[in-house]
C-alpha cells in the first residue's frame, strides 16, 4: 500500500484510504510536527523551510506571533513574549516563583491575581495561561500539518516528558483541546525516541534513553523486542534542562560583572540569558568564548568563559540527572552491563560534558548519531500513523508505565500509596474505605502524586467528594473507590458503596496549587528523610487512632451511655478517656499512646459488645433472617477491631 502512494505534498492521491495523523513534539524551547507519508516518517517544514518552531509566543494588542518572529522580539518585549511555557504547565503561582529563583528572584512575567488555580500572565493581548500559550503553538503546528497534507487530520499524538505528573499531562491535553486537536495519545518523549531509534536500527534488547531537553529531563529503561517497546522503568525531573544551564551561566555573568542583580530590568535579564545560551552553544565547538554584555548606556561588561568553568557550573545539574538514572536502573532491576545502547535525545545532549558524564556513568559510548531535536516528533508520527489505523498488520506496540506513585491522604496527613511508580499502564486499583462517624453519608478523598510519606511533601492532584451513600454506624459502610489510569497516564476515579450497592457521586476539584519542591527533590528527600518520616508517621498514626477512639467513645456515650452502663462502669470509661486524651496531646513516643489505648479498650470492651448486640437487633428488627447474608455483615466483626477500624498498612507490603 505504501508503495502505491506516490503523491506530492498537498496532493494526496488516495485521501480516503489513508488517514492522516501527525506527531507533535511540544518542547520547552522548540516544537516540531512530523507525519508518515509513503511509509516514511519525517518532520514538516514551514513555508520558509524551517522545521523547528521556537516555542515562543508574543501577545500584542491585536495579533499573536508564534515562533521565530516572537523569539526575535523576546528581549525588547519580554513582558508580552512568553517562552518556556511548558515549565508552567500544571503549576500554581507559588510553585512557579519557587521554581524560577534565579536572576533577581523573579520570573520576567507579571501574573494577574485571580481565584483560579491556574496562573495567568498579563500581556498586551490579555491574560494568558500556559495552557493557552501551548494551544497557540499547537495551532500553528496543526495548520502546518493540514497545509502540507492538504487534508483533514484524523488526530495527533502529542509527546510529554515521561516524568510529567497527572496535572501536567492534563494541562497538555487541555491545550490540545483548545487548539482543536483530537488527541490520539499522549506519548512519553523517551518512548517516542525509542520507537524512531529502534525501528531505524533494528536493535533488540534493553536500552536506556537519556532525554535532556530545554526544561525537562527523562530517563527510561526499556526492552525492545519484535516491534514491542516495553518501558521497564522511568525517572527524571520535570524541572531540569538546558534552561538551567543558561541560568547557571547567567548567574555567573551577573556575579562576575558585580552589578546589582535585583536592579536588573526584565529585558536585561532576557539579554543576559540569551548571551548565556549563545556562549553555551559556542563552547561545544570552542575551548573558550568571549562574552560582552551592555547593561545600559554607561555600563558594559566583558569576560571570558572557558570550558572548565562551564563544566564547574553545570556538573551539579548533570549529576542530578545521573541520580535519576541510577534509580531507574534499580527500579527496572537491570544492571548497567545489560544495557545495549544509551540513546541520547534532546538538544541539551549536544553538550560535550553531558555526553562525557553519561558515558562514564553507563560505562558505554552514548549513541549521538540521531538528530536529537527531531527524533521525538518522528517517533510520535510513527505511533500516530499506527493509531489512525494505517498499520493494521503492524506489530508496533508501546507499553508504558506510571512515572510517579499515586496515593491518597489518610487521617493525619499521611500518604497511602494506591498505585506504585513504574506500574505498567493502563492500571486500575480498587481501595475500600469506611466511615468513621455514625450516620456519615459523604466522604472527602484527597489524591496526591509523589513518593513521600507525609501528604504535604507530595503533589496535590485533586480532591474528590463522595456523596449520597446510605448512613450506617461508624465503620459499617464499605466504600469501594476505583482508581483507573488510562494509556495516556491520566487518572479517573469512581466510587460505590458496597453494602447497599449505591453508586456514590464523585466531584473532582483539581488542585495545582501546592508548593513545589520539584518532583526530583521530593524523591531525593524521601530517601533522606526516610527515618524521620517513619517516626513521625507512627506517632501521627497513633494520634489519629487515639482521636478515632475518643470520637467513638464520646458519640457512643452521648447516644446510649446512660442506658447501657452503670454509673460505676461509666466513670471507669470516662477516667480512661481523659487519660487517653491527655496522652494524645502530650505523648512524644508511640508506646505511651498505645498503652493508653489498650487500657481504654479493655475498660470499654463489655460496653462495645453490648452496643454491637443492640445494633444487630435493631438492624434485624422487621426483617426476615434470610435477608441477611451474615457472612458479609460487618456486624460480625470483632468488636474491638471495630473500635479501631481502618487498619493501616504498615505491615502489608
Amino acid at each position, binding site marked *: 500500500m505504501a508503495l502505491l502512494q506516490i503523491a506530492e505534498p498537498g496532493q494526496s492521491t488516495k485521501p480516503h484510504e489513508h*488517514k492522516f495523523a501527525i506527531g507533535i513534539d511540544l518542547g520547552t524551547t522548540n516544537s516540531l510536527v512530523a507525519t508518515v507519508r509513503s511509509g516514511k516518517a519525517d518532520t514538516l517544514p514551514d513555508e520558509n523551510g524551517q522545521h523547528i518552531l521556537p516555542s515562543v509566543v508574543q501577545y500584542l494588542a491585536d495579533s499573536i506571533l508564534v515562533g521565530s518572529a516572537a523569539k526575535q522580539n523576546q528581549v525588547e518585549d519580554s513582558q508580552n513574549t512568553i517562552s518556556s511555557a511548558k515549565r508552567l504547565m500544571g503549576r500554581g503561582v507559588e510553585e512557579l516563583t519557587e521554581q524560577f529563583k534565579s536572576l533577581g528572584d523573579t520570573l520576567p512575567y507579571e501574573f494577574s491575581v485571580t481565584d483560579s488555580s491556574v496562573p495567568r500572565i498579563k500581556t498586551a493581548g490579555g491574560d494568558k495561561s500556559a495552557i493557552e500559550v501551548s494551544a497557540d503553538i499547537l495551532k500553528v503546528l496543526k495548520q502546518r500539518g493540514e497545509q502540507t497534507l492538504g487534508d483533514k487530520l*484524523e488526530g495527533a499524538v502529542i509527546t510529554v516528558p515521561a516524568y510529567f505528573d497527572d496535572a501536567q499531562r492534563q494541562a497538555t491535553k487541555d491545550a490540545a483541546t483548545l487548539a482543536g486537536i483530537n488527541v*490520539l*495519545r499522549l506519548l512519553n518523549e523517551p518512548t517516542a525516541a525509542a520507537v524512531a531509534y529502534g525501528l531505524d536500527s533494528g536493535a533488540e534488547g534493553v536500552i536506556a534513553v537519556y532525554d535532556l531537553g530545554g526544561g525537562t529531563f527523562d530517563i527510561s529503561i526499556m526492552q525492545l*523486542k*519484535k516491534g*514491542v517497546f*516495553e518501558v521497564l522503568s522511568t525517572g527524571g525531573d520535570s524541572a531540569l534542562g538546558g534552561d538551567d544551564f543558561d541560568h547557571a551561566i547567567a548567574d555567573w555573568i551577573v556575579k562576575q560583572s558585580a552589578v546589582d542583580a535585583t536592579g536588573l530590568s526584565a529585558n536585561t535579564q532576557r539579554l543576559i540569558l540569551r548571551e548565556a545560551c549563545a556562549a553555551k552553544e559556542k563552547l561545544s565547538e570552542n575551548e573558550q568564548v568571549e562574552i560582552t554584555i551592555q547593561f545600559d548606556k554607561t555600563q558594559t561588561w566583558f569576560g571570558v568563559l572557558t570550558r572548565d568553568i562551564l563544566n564547574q557550573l553545570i556538573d551539579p545539574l548533570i*549529576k542530578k540527572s*545521573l*541520580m535519576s538514572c*541510577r*534509580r531507574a536502573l*534499580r527500579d527496572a532491576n537491570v544492571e548497567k552491563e545489560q544495557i545495549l545502547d544509551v540513546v541520547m535525545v534532546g538538544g541539551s545532549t549536544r553538550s560535550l560534558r553531558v555526553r562525557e558524564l553519561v558515558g562514564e556513568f553507563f560505562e558505554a559510548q552514548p549513541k549521538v548519531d540521531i538528530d536529537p531535536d527531531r527524533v521525538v516528533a518522528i517517533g510520535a508520527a510513527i*505511533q500516530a500513523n*499506527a*493509531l*489512525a*489505523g494505517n498499520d493494521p498488520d503492524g*506489530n508496533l*506496540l*508501546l*507499553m508504558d508505565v506510571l512515572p510517579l506513585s499515586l496515593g491518597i491522604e489518610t487521617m493525619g496527613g499521611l500518604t497511602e500509596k494506591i498505585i506504585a511508580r513504574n*506500574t*505498567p*499502564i*493502563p*492500571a*486500575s*486499583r480498587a481501595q475500600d474505605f469506611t466511615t468513621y462517624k455514625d450516620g456519615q453519608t459523604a466522604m472527602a478523598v484527597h489524591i496526591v502524586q509523589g513518593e513521600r510519606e507525609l501528604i504535604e511533601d507530595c503533589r496535590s492532584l485533586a480532591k474528590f467528594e463522595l456523596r449520597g451513600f446510605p448512613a450506617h454506624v461508624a465503620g459499617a459502610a464499605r466504600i469501594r473507590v476505583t482508581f*483507573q489510569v*488510562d*494509556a495516556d497516564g491520566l487518572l479517573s476515579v469512581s466510587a460505590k458503596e458496597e453494602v447497599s450497592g449505591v453508586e456514590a457521586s464523585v466531584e473532582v476539584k483539581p488542585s495545582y496549587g501546592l508548593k513545589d519542591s520539584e518532583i526530583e527533590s521530593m524523591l*531525593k528527600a524521601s*530517601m*533522606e528523610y*526516610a*527515618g524521620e518520616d517513619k517516626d513521625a508517621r507512627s506517632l501521627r498514626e497513633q494520634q489519629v487512632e487515639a482521636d478515632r477512639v475518643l470520637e467513638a467513645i464520646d458519640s457512643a456515650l452521648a447516644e446510649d451511655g446512660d442506658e447501657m452502663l452503670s454509673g460505676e462502669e461509666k466513670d471507669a470509661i470516662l477516667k480512661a478517656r481523659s487519660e487517653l486524651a491527655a496522652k494524645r496531646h502530650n505523648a512524644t513516643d508511640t508506646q505511651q499512646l498505645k498503652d493508653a489505648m489498650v487500657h481504654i479498650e479493655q475498660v470499654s470492651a463489655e460496653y462495645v459488645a453490648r452496643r454491637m448486640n443492640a445494633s444487630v437487633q435493631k438492624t434485624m428488627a422487621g426483617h426476615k433472617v434470610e435477608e441477611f447474608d451474615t457472612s458479609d455483615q460487618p456486624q460480625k466483626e470483632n468488636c474491638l*477491631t471495630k473500635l479501631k477500624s481502618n*487498619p493501616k498498612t504498615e*505491615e*502489608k*507490603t
Partner: protein
Amino acid sequence: MLDSIFNQNYFEIFSLDVSTDPDLSQLNEKNRELQQQVHPDRFASGTDAEKREAMQKTSLVNEAFNTLKNPVSRLQYMLSLKGVDISAETDTTMDGAFLMEQMEFREEIADVRSQANPLDVLDTMTADVKNKSADLKNSFADYYQQDDLDKAREVVRKLQFLNKAQKEINQIVEQLEDELI
C-alpha cells in the same frame, strides 16, 4: 475478544501452572502476546465502549503480570487462590526467634554507616537476604503442596519482612552512592 481473562486466575491468563517458580520467559512472552490483542492502542479508532473494554482488559493483564513477576506478591496471590488473605490483620502469631533476628538485622542496617566499608557490608546483607528468601520460597512450596496454609502464610509474612529490609538496604545504598558523586 479475550473475554475469558476475566474468569481466569492470573496463572491461567498466561497459560502457566500455579507454581512458586513459573517460567518467567513464558510470562514475558505471553504478556507481549496478550498486550498485542487487548492494548488500547489497538482500539484507538474504535468506539468508546471498545476503548473502555481495552483499558479494562489491559489493566487486568498488567495487574496479573505484575503480581506474578514479583516473587512475594506471587506467593501471596497463590495463598489468595486458596482463600487465605495475607493482608488481613487477624494473625498475630509470628515466630518469635525470627522477629528477634529481624529486629537485630534492622539495627545492623541502621548502623551500617559506622562500618569501615558500608557498601561492602550492604552487599553482603543483600546476598544474605537473597539466600534466606530463596530458602523461604522453597519451604513455601512444600507447605503449599501439603496444604498447610497456616505455615505457608507465615512464610510469606517472613518474606515480607525480608522484602522491607531489602528496601531499607537499597535506600541506604542509594544515599551512600549519592554522597560519592
